[in-house]
């Protein structure tokens, strides 16, 4: 057998590779062939929208579970709200990150948890073996430990935790379909609020923030600052094995692809850059004005599940006008930002 070129640091994997045995194949094949449900049956349905946000609950109701390296959810509960630190870094990082995310939505937007009605915040850590990912499954946040060679554990990054919980906020507010432009908007909204969770937690003004997503995830063996840059999409990493950050910063560079649900993590660079430009133009704490406009946009109820960039941009303009006025600096900043990234209003 022959394989692709892999850089030297991956050679260290050799010593730990298991022999790929075939013993379980027959049983596994039988199991799958016995499955009769249509493959699309499990496609995630659009979640029902929650009632408008009420008075924010004073504190979150967090539950952290441990999958113990298996890909089975939810795992065993290891820390509940108000419980002492566990001593497991991933558990305690998830617990603190959930708290920081709850604090942003409560303090800045008077939103009680992700559904606006005080929903408990659940997370599972140590999911899978060397699992290079974190995701929101519709009910909980799930974090892998990374492979230790390209990625470290995903709970290390507060912007990642904020990103995942914000998928929950989107699910309960706008339910943007996770495909194509609406999927890229879904991703961008999570990056926006993930960044704001981090800035709010650190007390950073827009000018002080890195505007990087997943700044803590790469190991020292990767040539890259982060997974994404909202300030300069396409510049987050440039690595021999991972390639170059593919995010566009302008509509003229929009990537048409079938990969990644139609490039949801790629083309999100365009609305990400637009948000950064609004926050940069207005200055101060980004969650107070730019973040407020984006929050109003996703919670106003006017976005279609398959909203395009243009439709979303128009919705942000209406949100800025409604909250800050027709002659406001906020409205001007929003209009200029979308023009700068090539989204025609």
């Amino acid at each position: 057998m022959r394989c692709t070129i892999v850089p030297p640091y991956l050679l260290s994997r050799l010593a730990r590779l298991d022999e790929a045995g075939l013993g379980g194949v027959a049983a596994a094949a039988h199991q799958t062939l016995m499955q009769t449900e249509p493959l699309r049956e499990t496609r995630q349905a659009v979640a029902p929208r929650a009632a408008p946000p009420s008075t924010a609950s004073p504190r979150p109701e967090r539950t952290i579970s441990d999958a113990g390296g298996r890909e089975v959810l939810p795992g065993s509960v290891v820390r509940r709200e108000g419980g002492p630190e566990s001593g497991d870094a991933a558990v305690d990082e998830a617990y603190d990150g959930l708290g920081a995310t709850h604090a942003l939505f409560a303090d800045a937007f008077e939103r009680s948890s992700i559904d606006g009605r005080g929903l408990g915040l659940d997370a599972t850590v140590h999911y899978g073996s060397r699992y290079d990912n974190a995701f929101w499954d519709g009910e909980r946040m799930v974090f892998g430990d990374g492979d230790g060679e390209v990625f470290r554990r995903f709970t290390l990054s507060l912007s990642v935790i904020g990103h995942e919980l914000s998928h929950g906020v989107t699910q309960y507010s706008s339910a943007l379909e996770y495909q194509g432009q609406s999927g890229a908007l879904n991703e961008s909204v999570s990056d926006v609020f993930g960044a704001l969770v981090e800035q709010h937690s650190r007390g950073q003004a827009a000018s002080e923030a890195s505007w990087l997503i997943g700044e803590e995830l790469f190991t020292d063996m990767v040539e890259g600052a982060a997974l994404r840059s909202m300030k300069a999409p396409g510049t987050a990493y440039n690595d021999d094995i991972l390639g170059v950050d593919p995010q566009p910063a302008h509509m003229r560079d929009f990537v048409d692809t079938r990969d990644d649900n139609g490039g949801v993590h790629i083309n999100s660079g365009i609305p990400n850059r637009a948000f950064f430009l609004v926050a940069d133009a207005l200055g101060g704490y980004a969650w107070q004005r730019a973040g407020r406009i984006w929050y109003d946009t996703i919670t106003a109820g006017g976005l279609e599940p398959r909203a395009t960039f243009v439709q979303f941009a128009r919705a942000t303009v209406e949100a800025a006008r409604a909250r800050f006025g027709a002659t406001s600096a906020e409205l001007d900043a929003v209009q200029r930002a979308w023009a700068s990234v090539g989204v025609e209003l």
Partner: protein
Amino acid sequence: MNITVVRSGGFAGIRRTWRVVVNDESSAAVDEWLHIVDACPWSDAVDLDGDGVPDRFVFVVTVEALPLESASTSQLHATLPESRVVGPWRQLIDRVQASDRADT
């Protein structure tokens, strides 16, 4: 016989590719791989895209230059979301990834 696994999506949105070239002169090696390949329900997974779950992976699996005596076609292709990577799909993808690393 060549087997390629492309993984896109995930939180990072980074596209990764793993590939093995099976030595056709080794019937034992070919048989081992065909045992897994034949167990995968290919016809159910053609053109299947993501499952709408935020930040999960999407896999594209391609088998090229299949031994003609073992199949009615020389190429197989399937797209499937991470939530469907179970049973023989999981065996095949894990084995391609491990073999790619091991042969480097």
